[in-house]
């Protein structure tokens, strides 16, 4: 009888230990996956923003009049002009626009952000961008409607959101309005990074002296 009790007790304890081990393994693996996805998303966001910043900072540079900087002001597309520092008189046209959603990606919201220079081949990469929204303001801070009076644009607000291409644990799931940890894959959310910045089209258009 005593031996049987010992055996039963051992089996119960061993079962718990195995369950703890499995759960621990699941948590660590999920956490490592989530951390990796978050890091990838943040690095992608920084890379995208750095590229945008590189161009937007030069907007209007070298132009005879600053109000010629923006050519087209749409919600997800902008065309602007930049002078060439090394070749005075040469003006380049830069275009940024958001492509269609990626059909084969797990994250159906992900798109490609494209950059085109002087009407050439558009270049983009699938970095998981899910939001690229532009808003345009005049010198009084009022919003300018899309596709109208680009000459009045003095500042641009850029919103960028990058999400992981697959779901990971511990991330907010907008569909269920919850944070998924150990539920099914579809209950989990996408790792997200958000950036919003307002930038002047040309530094010296409002400041004098």
């Amino acid at each position: 009888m005593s031996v049987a009790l010992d055996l039963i007790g051992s089996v119960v304890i061993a079962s718990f230990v195995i369950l703890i081990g499995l759960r621990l393994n699941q948590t660590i693996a999920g956490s490592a996956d989530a951390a990796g996805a978050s890091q990838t998303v943040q690095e992608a966001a920084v890379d995208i923003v750095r590229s945008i910043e590189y161009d937007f900072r030069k907007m209007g540079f070298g132009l005879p009049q600053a109000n010629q900087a923006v050519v087209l002001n749409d919600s997800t597309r902008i065309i602007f002009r930049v002078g060439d520092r090394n070749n005075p008189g040469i003006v380049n046209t830069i275009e940024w626009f958001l492509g269609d959603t990626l059909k084969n990606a797990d994250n159906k919201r992900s798109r490609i952000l494209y950059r085109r220079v002087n009407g050439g081949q558009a270049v983009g990469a699938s970095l998981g961008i899910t939001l690229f929204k532009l808003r345009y303001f005049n010198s009084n801070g009022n919003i300018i409607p899309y596709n109208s009076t680009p000459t009045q644009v003095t500042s641009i607000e850029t919103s960028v959101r990058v999400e992981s291409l697959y779901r990971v644990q511990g991330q907010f799931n907008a569909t269920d309005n919850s944070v998924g940890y150990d539920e099914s894959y579809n209950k989990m959310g996408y790792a997200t990074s958000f950036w919003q910045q307002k930038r002047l089209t040309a530094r010296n258009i409002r400041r004098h002296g």
Partner: protein
Amino acid sequence: MNLGQMMLVVVALSILGILVLTANKSVLSSGEVTEDSDFGITAVSLATSIAEEALGQYYDHNCLTGEDSLGGFTAPDSLGSGGGKKFASSSIPFNDFDDYNGIFVAYRSDNPKDTAPVAGADTLITVPGLRSRYYVKATVGYVDDLDPSGPYLSIRSYTKRMDLKVWRPALPGVSSKKDTLWYPVVMSYWP
């Protein structure tokens, strides 16, 4: 099961418990680092927006009338918005760098439940996509032209520095460390 075996089981379970707790701590620590860096990215973007706007303004509102001597600039203890000027206002907008002195801007998400007012905030701006509230406070002062990172001066100079501080109000309750982003911006005026 004799006492010796029982002791071995207890020791084994204790070691397992320590392992689980250590792993849990590691997972939480990793999550905190990820959250912190995510917060930093958004915080920098919000701070840069205000910095960029301020850098597009006059150095001093007296520059509007062509003033370029030190004595003609705003006195150090009078820096700030005046004359009905208000941040993010289209009626009487800010027009110089030091108007931003003392502003308190609160950013909220577009979550319908995130509606609580913010005491003392100049404005509460809704940012769709934001995952947390962010508060930004700015102070502006004259600094030494040759040492712009030094303390504020009690005299006028040709250089002003804006110190933007960004933080999430929810964070201090979660983490014991003070998690505030400090973002200094310098503007110089050379007549």
